[in-house]
């Protein structure tokens, strides 16, 4: 057993130190996995109050054999980059300490995603450090790449919002939507979205085999989508029986006529140069449209579309792994760009086939 060092290639290039606050959680564990295999990062610290002093492999079995142990989030080491993967509300309380500890802070919670204090009052329970909202940069590179280089406070997007924005973005970019259209977004998500501290509803006997409406209306990720596109979407989220994955089906009713060619142009224009975006739209075989298990474990975002002329509808499908493109992968991607590293560094895993409900 000589697993220390994992897949790290020693490539002479610079090495940055990183810490993960909330390292015992689901997205925290994913960050540790990615950083462990990243050519430019060395993990200096992973925090957990409940698992303090335990090895990171005792919680995350994929990291067995690593010598790093969880430490107290109250004692932050000085690092180049601090990733915070804590529940909503923690980062806004501790943001000063985070900024003291690191030049670059990437927060995975919703704490710095919205622009104004008012929005936090409308959608959450207010904000305790609103002065940082101006400064923070929304992470999603496909929509925000230009803002990222040099960013000091990065807010990684919500998983369901990310899936939706990746699906709808090209329609707005190409002018096929302008913001006054009817848009229904029907989302299906896996159980890792709920984080590691699930209650009765997420026990295996109750959570298995379900198609369960869990956010019928009023999901908070609507705020992020509205922030990006200026459109209010009709948003409904269902929990289904998978662990990783978020799939958004957007039913869109454009004002004027749209052809299949228009759609292909729009999506190719937006994504042809994107390293993590793939278009799957029809064709043969088993995997014709985006689906979560085709992207599980990867940082890919798969999108596809279909026309429904009878109803003057565009249907857009979008699939991501909520642990990756929907959180930890997006965070590392954004950090790579912010720090001038190779954009895809540490994020090359292609995914598995066949694979079940990863």
């Amino acid at each position, binding site marked *: 057993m000589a697993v220390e060092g994992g897949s790290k290639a020693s490539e002479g290039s610079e090495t940055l130190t990183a810490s993960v606050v909330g390292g015992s959680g689901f997205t925290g564990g994913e960050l540790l996995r990615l950083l462990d295999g990243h050519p430019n990062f060395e993990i200096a610290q992973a925090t957990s109050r409940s698992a303090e002093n335990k090895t990171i492999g005792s919680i995350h079995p994929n990291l067995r054999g690593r010598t790093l142990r969880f430490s107290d989030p109250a004692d932050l080491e000085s690092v180049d980059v601090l990733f915070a993967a804590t529940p909503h509300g923690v980062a806004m309380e501790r943001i000063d300490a985070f900024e003291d500890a690191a030049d670059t802070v990437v927060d995975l919670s919703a704490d710095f995603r919205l622009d104004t204090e008012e929005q936090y009052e409308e959608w959450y329970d207010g904000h305790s450090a609103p002065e940082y909202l101006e400064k923070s940069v929304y992470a999603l590179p496909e929509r925000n790449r230009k803002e990222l280089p040099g960013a000091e406070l990065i807010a990684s997007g919500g998983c369901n919002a990310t899936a939706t924005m990746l699906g709808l973005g090209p329609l707005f970019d190409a002018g096929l939507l302008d913001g006054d259209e009817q848009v229904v977004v029907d989302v299906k998500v896996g159980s890792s979205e709920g984080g590691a501290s699930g209650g009765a509803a997420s026990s295996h006997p109750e959570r298995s085999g379900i198609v369960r409406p869990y956010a019928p209306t009023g999901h908070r990720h609507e705020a992020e989508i509205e922030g990006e596109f200026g459109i209010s979407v009709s948003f409904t989220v269902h929990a289904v029986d998978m662990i990783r994955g978020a799939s958004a089906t957007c039913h869109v009713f454009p004002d004027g006529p749209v052809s*299949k*060619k228009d759609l*292909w*142009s729009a999506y*190719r224009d937006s994504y*042809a140069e994107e390293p993590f975006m793939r*278009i*799957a*739209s*029809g*064709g*043969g*075989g*088993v995997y*014709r449209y985006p689906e979560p298990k085709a992207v599980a474990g990867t940082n890919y975002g798969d999108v596809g579309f279909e026309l429904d002329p009878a109803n003057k509808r565009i249907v857009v499908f979008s699939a991501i792994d909520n642990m990756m493109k929907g959180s930890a992968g997006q965070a590392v991607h954004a950090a790579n760009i912010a720090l001038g590293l190779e954009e895809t560094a540490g994020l090359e895993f292609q995914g598995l086939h066949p694979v079940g409900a990863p």
Partner: protein
Amino acid sequence: MADDSTITAEDPLTGDEIEVPADVEVGEIIDSPVSGAELEVVSTDPVELEEAPELEEDWGE
């Protein structure tokens, strides 16, 4: 693998240049590595592709 056994043609859906086997014949169905779509070879010199009619009932229910 772009050697002499492949030639390029245009994906009619996306406009991209894609590689197809040099020996394709008219009527053959070829998938596009870009769009994943199934394309029918409608002429060979040069190779021209069109969106293949969807095979309705071969998938799912």
